[in-house]
């Protein structure tokens, strides 16, 4: 996944559809993340201004949703399903394999970010891991090793 470098002009352009609409705060933040890979600090006052809400409101939304990031993603992005259906087929072992390699769930390093997801809806073919946007069912040690490489 490639993202654009932050630019106020670009941000204002992609946020055009949210202009003047206070119900579009979440959409605005999602749009920024899609474009820049995360929500840069400069994005908060911009969204506040465009959507006619306070900065505190924007912060409130930003901090509520697990998926919105405030720091740039670096390296490979791994998302491990931690929910029950995957637990039943070894999700905890997958999580442990990443942890043992120095990348516990919730950690972000230059080379790899590992995040938890509570269900991809792939519950009959778990354990499920997503690597850079690609979903892997029946996740094996090889797939974990590949993701760690």
């Amino acid at each position, binding site marked *: 996944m490639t993202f654009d470098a932050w630019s106020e002009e670009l941000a204002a352009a992609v946020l055009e559809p949210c202009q003047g*609409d*206070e*119900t*579009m*705060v*979440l*959409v*605005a*933040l*999602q749009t920024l993340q899609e474009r820049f890979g995360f929500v840069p600090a400069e994005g908060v006052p911009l969204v506040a201004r465009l*959507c006619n809400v306070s900065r505190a*409101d924007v912060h*409130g*939304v930003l901090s*509520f*949703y*697990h*998926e*919105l990031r405030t720091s740039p993603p670096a390296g490979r992005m791994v998302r491990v399903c931690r*929910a*029950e*259906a*995957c*637990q*039943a*087929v070894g999700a905890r072992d997958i999580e442990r394999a990443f942890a043992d390699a120095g990348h516990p769930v919730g950690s972000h390093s230059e080379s790899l970010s590992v995040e938890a*997801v*509570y*269900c*991809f*809806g*792939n*519950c*009959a*073919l*778990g354990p*499920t891991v997503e690597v850079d946007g690609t*979903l*892997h*069912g*029946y996740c094996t040690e090889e797939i974990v090793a590949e993701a760690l490489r």
Partner: protein
Amino acid sequence: MRIYIPADSSARSVGADQVAARISELPYAEIVRNGSRGLAWLEPLLEVETEQGRIAYGPVRVSDIDSLISADFAHGGPHPLRLGNIEEHAWFAAQDRVTFARVGLIDPLSLDDFRAHGGYAGLSKALALSGEEIVAEVTASGLRGRGGAGFPAGIKWRTVLGAAGSEKYVACNADEGDSGTFADRMLMEGDPFTLIEGMTIAALAVGATQGVIYVRSEYPAAISTLRAAIATANLNGWLGDDIQGSGRSFDIEVRSGAGAYICGEETSMLESLEGKRGQVRAKPPLPALKGLYGKPTVINNVLTLASVPMVLADGAAAYQARGVERSRGTQVFQLAGNIKHGGILELPFGVPLRQLVEGFGGGTRSGRPIGAVQVGGPLGAYFGADQLDLITDYEAMLAAGGMLGHGGIVVFDDTVDHLQQARFAMEFCAIESCGKCTPCRIGSTRGVETIDKIIAGQDVDTNRVLLDDLCELMTDGSLCALGGLTPLPVRSALKLAGV
């Protein structure tokens, strides 16, 4: 030569794209990326159109393709992976596909295919009816909400129909957060026009002109498929102004969630749709009267809305004839977790749990005895292997101390650590709590700590009593079912653990 290879996310997670890429190199291949037939363990399941009908092969790996070609699979030739006509497969043939009738059968984005298989028959009828008449039909069908609570759809629609004001909404709940559930996703990816048709009928019934589908962000393919289908429906006069010359108009927008389980709770979803933190609203007012932007709003689950076209097309009586007691029609069960034959099973209500997990499901994938079965998502109860004679309808599940929820069934083998499952239920509540009520927000964190002490063997009796008090407090003092029902999996798992 027409060859069907699912573009369903689950099929893709086990290599359907790679298979499709290899098959597309064959000069005679005309590939259709369909939805999944729902026999997940056979994915990627490839079907070829032959003179003997559609012949399936699966599960197909890229490494099987050379031998499939040698076996002349394109004409249905014999091969170890050959399954014959999948609709005659025992797993499929025993089902009653109503809501899922077209999923896997058709090209999801082909309006012609959809119409050739009965699509828009329900809406065509609805266009000739009054709102009152549509509501009466849906009420008579006995259709209940498939999102978890099982509230009668017709009664909800009647409230919205009767609400004052000309600005009304239809909001489809496609947040599908429960682990072990994937039916909404499969329907949206495999037959999006059915959901669009159901929402349009709901709009006609209550007098709404704008609809929105709130899809969890973990479902990017569902989002793009829905958007493409909506565009096609618009182009062909099935959405937008003056639908099929009726003078009625309806538009649908797709919105993405942002990774918060609580946003599946309907009032939290409304807050999220309004761009805010997904904090649960107190009821009343009912969303049916004051919903999206404070306007009367129909909120229904994907499967509820997707069942409506058939109710209109074939009549309420045909739907009502299925099922048992007060659970009418079909339920789309989802077999998940440690299960040999997982996937989608659409059956009339009233099937014993054992028939689902041992009969259809074939027991555990690991081959070990069943250790626990969680029904109804993360807020549903855990049942032991000796409780499988339970009947899966709304009331029977409630009576047994559980709930059917969205129909997800997660199987664990006997290596399951019940205490860890109890701990996870509390932890999940702590992570996903919207923070509005103290028993849910703080209680769940205390709950995790207390279970940790029990696991460590620390003052077990005292901590067990403490945990019970906590559960009581959460049940009584929570505004919504996240805090209110978390004690269900916690207590049932503790019971299985013998603690």
